[in-house]
């Protein structure tokens, strides 16, 4: 057997045309951060950098077996990643840029579904760039813009200089309504610190949710924590957070909803069959799920995450002294029955 190979992290960059993806990519390729990135783009196009680690690839959406969305992968990525990984040592990480209209799910699923890709790489985070000025319009005319936000771990709210404070607050509230678990960074000219978008470990169970105050404290109504909105942030968190568990968001053009669940210690014999059943039955409607589960008589926190029907879970670390043994789970998706999820989740609590 070959010596254990470290898995190369992969960052997926989504966002509409004009949202600033190319600007961010150019920064990733040119800034002096001491790391080398292989970049998979749909078209060399505007990237004005000549670098043999930039690979052009046609987006190929391949449905497997039965045509279920949960088994859809990006065939071209399988081929390109396999090719790149035959020459390891040339780069430290991979960035996949998707086209503006791309559905991020097949990209992400490629890194879970394909054994070869999975053995050599690991999905690090899905980053969505959003144009602060044009997002409301995008949400009106496409479902993809919404999907990209719903699916993201990090949202870069770009071009904030083109909107006034009120517009910005409203756009950010919309993003929060679609995805309460993502980190949001307000930027101009995609000027986000690169360490806030790269090497995030968002799919790494040992790191996931660890530094995710919005997720952890979504319902605490205690917002003294170090939030992610930037130094000029002055919006009212209480106001934003009221959307979270109200099913479909009040914003007219948003069809994605999130359901945040919270309970006490869970009975593992009830929880696992439940999450299995929910993801099997509702998989196509679930874009992402993330959670921290406290099991009765278990000294360790259990973290769980999922994409459609694919779920992964593991013990993360011991509960700290004085930490509340609470279980929290967020579903982001469409046509989710919030009441039923809440009821059945609570029924998994240990007696």
């Amino acid at each position: 057997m070959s010596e254990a190979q470290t898995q190369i992290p992969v960052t997926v960059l989504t966002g509409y045309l004009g949202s600033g993806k190319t600007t961010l990519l150019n920064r990733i390729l040119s800034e002096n951060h001491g790391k080398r990135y292989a970049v998979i783009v749909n078209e060399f196009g505007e990237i004005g950098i000549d670098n043999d680690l930039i690979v052009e690839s046609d987006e190929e959406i391949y449905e497997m077996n039965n045509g279920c969305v949960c088994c859809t992968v990006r065939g071209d990525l399988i081929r390109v990643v396999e090719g790149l990984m035959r020459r390891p040592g040339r780069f430290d990480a991979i960035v996949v840029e998707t086209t503006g209209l791309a559905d991020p799910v097949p990209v992400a699923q490629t890194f879970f579904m394909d054994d070869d890709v999975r053995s050599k790489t690991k999905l690090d985070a899905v980053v969505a760039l959003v144009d602060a000025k044009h997002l409301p319009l995008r949400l009106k005319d496409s479902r993809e813009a919404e999907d990209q936000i719903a699916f993201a771990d990090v949202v870069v709210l770009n071009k904030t200089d083109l909107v006034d404070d009120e517009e910005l607050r409203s756009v950010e509230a919309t993003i929060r309504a679609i995805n309460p678990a993502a980190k949001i960074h307000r930027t101009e000219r995609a000027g986000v610190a690169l360490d806030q978008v790269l090497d995030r470990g968002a799919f790494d169970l040992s790191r996931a949710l660890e530094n995710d105050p919005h997720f952890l404290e979504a319902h605490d109504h205690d917002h003294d924590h170090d939030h992610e909105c930037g130094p000029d942030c002055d919006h009212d968190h209480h106001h934003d957070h009221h959307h979270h568990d109200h099913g479909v968001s009040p914003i007219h053009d948003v069809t994605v909803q999130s359901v945040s669940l919270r309970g006490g210690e869970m009975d593992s014999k009830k929880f696992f069959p439940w999450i299995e059943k929910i993801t099997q039955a509702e998989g196509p409607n679930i874009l992402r799920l993330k959670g921290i589960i406290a099991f009765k008589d278990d000294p360790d926190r259990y973290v769980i995450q999922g994409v459609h029907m694919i779920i992964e879970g593991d013990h993360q670390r011991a509960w700290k002294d004085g930490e509340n043994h609470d279980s929290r789970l967020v579903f982001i998706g469409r046509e989710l029955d919030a009441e039923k999820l809440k009821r059945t989740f609570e029924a998994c609590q240990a007696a």
Partner: protein
Amino acid sequence: MPTVAPLDLDGHCVAATFVADVPHFALADGHVHRLDHGHKSEKVHDGLLAATTDLASSRLVTGGEDGKVCSTKADGTSETLAELGRKWITSVACGPQGAIAYASGRNAYVRFADGKVKEFVHPRSVEGIAFSPKGMRIGVARYNGATLHFPAADGKPTELEWAGAHTGITFSPDGNFLVTTMQENALHGWKLVDGKHMRMSGYPAKVKSMSWSAKGKWLASSGAPAAIVWPFQSKDGPMGKAPLELGTRGNMMVSAVACHSADDIAAIGYADGMVLAARFADQKEVLLRRPGKGAITSMAWDKEGRRVVFGSESGDCGVIDIAG
């Protein structure tokens, strides 16, 4: 006793093969190494993605990340046959009358011996490409099936449909069957005379290596902890028949297969670098090489059927002399 002459190289071996009876090793970094009275190497590509020999094994045709298609002879001289700029050449094939085919993105190209090139555009990516042994015909593996083109003539291609992503492709030596590897853990086959389907499934992993036996009566494949060898003796191929399972190991996947140049014997390479030879008739096995550093990626027999070249993903390559 078989003896192994090792050749330790640095990097993933894309193809190990014989060119004019000289062992050649095409590495992903773009170097082509050969064992011709000592170890020699040439840099052919900046990144090599695909390699195959022509029908007479007189040259190695390679495709690269540098957008080039090159031909390298056993004396190390190399010539560029085609250039597509910054696009990756992901698949190459050699056909009759000096023709070659190559693929990049959604396009397949056939280059005739006189240098004339014909382009075939597809709605989806060309995942694999192969020549039919008979006539000037190519097969393209694509999403939801395969497409057959007749590059020497104008006219519509033949479309063979089967849902799913088809990644690799091979014609049987008699030209009667077309078989594809799939993104799913399965092979799919068509009987070309009537388009009848053949489903060959049950693999625990993706099939990445296929090899026809010398007379085309068997198709050996990787993708399981044994070489799965499908019978193609009857006119309906393997339908309704069980495949042979050769070289079964408890917990180690077969990663490459290569059938002997004359007899019904296959060299079987494993994910741990071991190589066995197994005879179809009595399933008798001979150990050819102990486990090494990485999975076997490619193997080939010489014309006499005495030597096997092998390459691995870790670069520990070599030549096995069966007779010792």
